[in-house]
């Protein structure tokens, strides 16, 4: 039974590929190339160095904007979650920022700061930050009062309380913000690259869109999805398992 359960994801993937292949054969159109054609493009672009170069540029932007948005968002989220006055003051700002379309922020950043790398990163951070703040704020609002009292009683101080009492309770919220953040950030980066950069996945996708080269578009998309899956399996899941080992 357990073995069957392990095989299910593979069976699911093969079914999807089979469905795609069937559909491609049935339509027989360059608008939907078959999986093997996409694989050929993937190989060609990888060997030529184009795919690693553009994928690397996008990943660098992802790491930079993520590394800025997460700590800032966590700090602001904890502040708003623990301080009612700060929350009352900033909550409308948050709602406003959450509702500004990503495209508007990106255009404004390019108009105000020029078509430069820092403007691109800033635009992504501004788009991601409110989501992190809202998620962490919810976590900070439901911290265990008993444990905070205990920490106060035993004079833990701010640093020990943050590391040993608050952060472990926020961990599920941080992981949720991380996962949702990575998925959101890379989509925003594509728009940022499409509108104002001369490299990266977004730039390449724009180029292939102009050429109506669907196989290349799919090849680049699949490459990025694979990278994101690797991040999930090799970084996020082990981190989560280590942090949750205290559970029964």
């Amino acid at each position, binding site marked *: 039974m357990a073995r069957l359960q392990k095989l299910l994801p593979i069976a699911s993937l093969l079914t999807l590929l089979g469905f795609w292949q069937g559909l491609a054969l049935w339509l027989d159109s360059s608008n939907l190339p078959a999986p093997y054609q996409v694989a050929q493009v993937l190989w060609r672009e990888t060997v030529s160095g184009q795919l690693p170069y553009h994928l690397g540029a996008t990943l660098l932007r992802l790491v930079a904007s993520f590394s800025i948005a997460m700590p800032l968002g966590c700090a602001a989220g904890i502040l708003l979650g623990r301080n009612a006055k700060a929350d009352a003051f900033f909550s409308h700002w948050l709602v406003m920022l959450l509702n500004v379309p990503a495209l508007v922020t990106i255009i404004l950043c390019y108009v105000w700061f020029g078509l430069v790398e820092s403007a691109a990163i800033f635009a992504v951070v501004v788009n991601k930050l409110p989501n992190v703040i809202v998620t962490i704020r919810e976590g900070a609002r439901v911290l265990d009062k008993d444990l905070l*009292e205990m920490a106060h009683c*035993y*004079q833990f101080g701010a640093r020990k309380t943050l590391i040993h009492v608050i952060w*472990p309770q926020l961990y599920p919220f941080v992981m949720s913000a991380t996962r949702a953040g990575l998925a959101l950030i890379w989509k925003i980066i594509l728009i940022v690259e499409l509108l104002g950069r001369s490299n990266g996945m977004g730039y390449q996708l724009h180029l292939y869109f102009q050429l109506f080269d669907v196989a290349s578009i799919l090849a680049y998309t699949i490459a990025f999805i694979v990278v994101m899956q690797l991040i999930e399996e090799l970084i996020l899941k082990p981190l989560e398992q280590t942090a949750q080992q*205290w559970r029964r």
Partner: protein
Amino acid sequence: MTPIHLHIADKSYPASGANLAHQAIANLNLHLQSGEFVCLVGPSGCGKTTLLNILAGLDPDYQGSIQTGPAARAPKIGYVFQNPRLLPWRTVQENLELAQHTPDLHVIDTLLAAMQLTAFRHSYPERLSLGMSRRVAIIRAFAATPDLLLMDEPFVSLDAPTARQVRELLLSLWQQRPHTVLFVTHDLREAIALADRLVFTSSAPMQIVSEIPVTLPRNQRHLDEKIETFRQHLLTQHAGIKNLL
């Protein structure tokens, strides 16, 4: 260690939602001698936990003062809560180290051995029984080397044999390290087994009704019949306290 004097002129809770405003404590004076074990006995809901929270600095919203002898600083507190309040994501040893300003493994080793928990030092609290968790909470309070040790019904919801075992371990620990202790309980037998002095309180607004020293020698406190005899003697001599239990 220094003597501690607590004066609460007024502790009231304002009305909120369906709860009416009420006065929890009124004009209460409590003096604790250095190294004294005092049991606070009073009816349920009379404000005993509120009093402990004020002493622990968790509730600053009251009128009154806490004086700690000639020292100007606030007393260093060890607090054993009704539930153990251990950090579930830290091991037993880490929980104990965090309560100390400077982690002292020697003290932790000794306390763990005294409470028969050495084998569980690297366990997470979720893997301990309730009785073991309560023992860890008691060790944590001692490990903090407090000026004042507050204990809020720490044996509640333990079965009688476990409660008795933990009580005896607590007593042996306290005799080795005689901190000033304020122990809240409903159980007069438990109070007699532990205390130097019993402080009986009224229902809310809480006031001290009677203070009675426990004259039963400590070497007889493990004998149930001696405790029962002393309890009967108390109830006969101080008829008013029966209504407070």
